[in-house]
């Protein structure tokens, strides 16, 4: 191989993209040719500078918040909505509605709770989908609860109960910091055969516990319950029976949460 041929593929050599034959041919030429060897060294020093890390632009603070709010707004805008101009004829329609609103006010706590539940379940399902699609399932990948639990120290202001259910075919595979309703929450990740389960946990802020129920959204099942002052949302593409089983195992095996 001569200098010109070598120069044509020397970048591939530098990048480790050559097959064995060409790789050897380049190496042989480099041993014989001081000029090509020097050229390679020059490129290696440039690359060293480029890879030193100081040329990498880290995302500025505040970008994450900006992105989250942009994405949230966009998803709100997608929900159906009609536009209308004010028209006095609306008054006739609105008067009875106003009366109905008074009735609603009385029933408000119930209504609010339902819509909160809807919103929460939508959020946890979205988080679940995102965690799978963005291949960002775990921040801490470990099957050891004594590794996963302490990892949350300093990241959330509570200590999530972590139970390993490997013996019951629901092995723990890790944990992740996630956000629900703009608050950091603990997401514990379990696996059941080929299914992943995200278990979202945060301290209850409500006085009375909300009803336990199954929901199905976008083909994902979620189940929500409260225990020992903590809220739990389990989300998975497993069927409801398996999800219920998972919940029962957690309840029975779960220790009371440690104080923050």
């Amino acid at each position, binding site marked *: 191989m001569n200098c010109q041929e070598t120069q044509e593929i020397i970048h591939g050599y530098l990048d480790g993209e050559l097959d064995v034959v060409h790789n050897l041919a380049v190496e042989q030429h480099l041993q014989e040719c001081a000029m090509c060897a020097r050229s390679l*060294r020059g*490129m290696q020093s*440039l690359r060293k500078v480029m*890879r*030193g890390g100081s040329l990498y632009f880290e*995302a500025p603070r505040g*970008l994450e918040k900006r992105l989250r709010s*942009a994405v949230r707004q966009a998803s709100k805008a997608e929900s159906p909505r009609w536009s209308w101009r004010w028209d006095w004829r609306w008054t006739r329609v609105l008067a009875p509605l106003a009366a109905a609103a008074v009735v609603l006010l009385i029933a408000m706590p119930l209504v609010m709770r339902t819509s909160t539940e809807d919103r929460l379940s939508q959020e946890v399902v979205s988080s679940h989908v995102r965690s799978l699609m*963005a291949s*960002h399932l775990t921040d801490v990948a470990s099957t050891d609860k004594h590794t996963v639990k302490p990892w949350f120290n300093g990241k959330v202001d509570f200590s999530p109960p972590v139970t390993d259910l490997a013996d019951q075919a629901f092995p723990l595979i890790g944990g992740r910091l996630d956000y629900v309703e703009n608050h950091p929450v603990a997401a514990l990740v379990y696996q059941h055969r080929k299914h992943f389960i995200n278990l979202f946990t945060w301290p209850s802020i409500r006085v009375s516990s909300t009803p336990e129920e199954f929901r199905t959204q976008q083909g994902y099942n979620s189940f929500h319950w409260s225990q020992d002052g903590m809220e739990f949302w389990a989300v998975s593409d497993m069927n409801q029976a398996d999800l219920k089983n998972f919940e029962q195992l957690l309840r029975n095996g779960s220790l009371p949460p440690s104080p923050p």
Partner: protein
Amino acid sequence: MPHMNAAYNLARWLAGNDSDAQDVVQEAYLRAFKFLGGFRGGDSRSWLLRIVRNAFYDWLKRNRREETGTQFDEEIHSADDETGMPDTSLLEKADHELVRTAIGDLPCEFREILVLRELEGFSYKEIADISGLPLGTVMSRLARAREHLRTLVVERLELK
């Protein structure tokens, strides 16, 4: 947000300043979330960077009066001596500030390929997927990008 640093780094190198880069990244994430259904598995980082890249070029069409970075004049910069190689022993003295400015002065198709290869560590195949370029073009463009960068850096070191 997943891969936010990688997205920002690419956008920042392409757009040339923070504020435009943030606009591009925001647009890219909106597209990404809108088209999550279009994600067919594989490496999500390259999937996202492909969206960032497209968002940047669309943004460039809408907003830019002229290309970022100076146009690279191959005539002026044909500094290679008769052996076909510049004095590369100088390159060991190149510091990151000098290299940073030199990359910034390259045309954006060269900046892009250097960022993907050297800063993000993508393989040729992955770069081809992200940029939609044929593999052969990736190789030759990377070679030209490095050679231009080398010429610029050597020139500036000689001026020092």
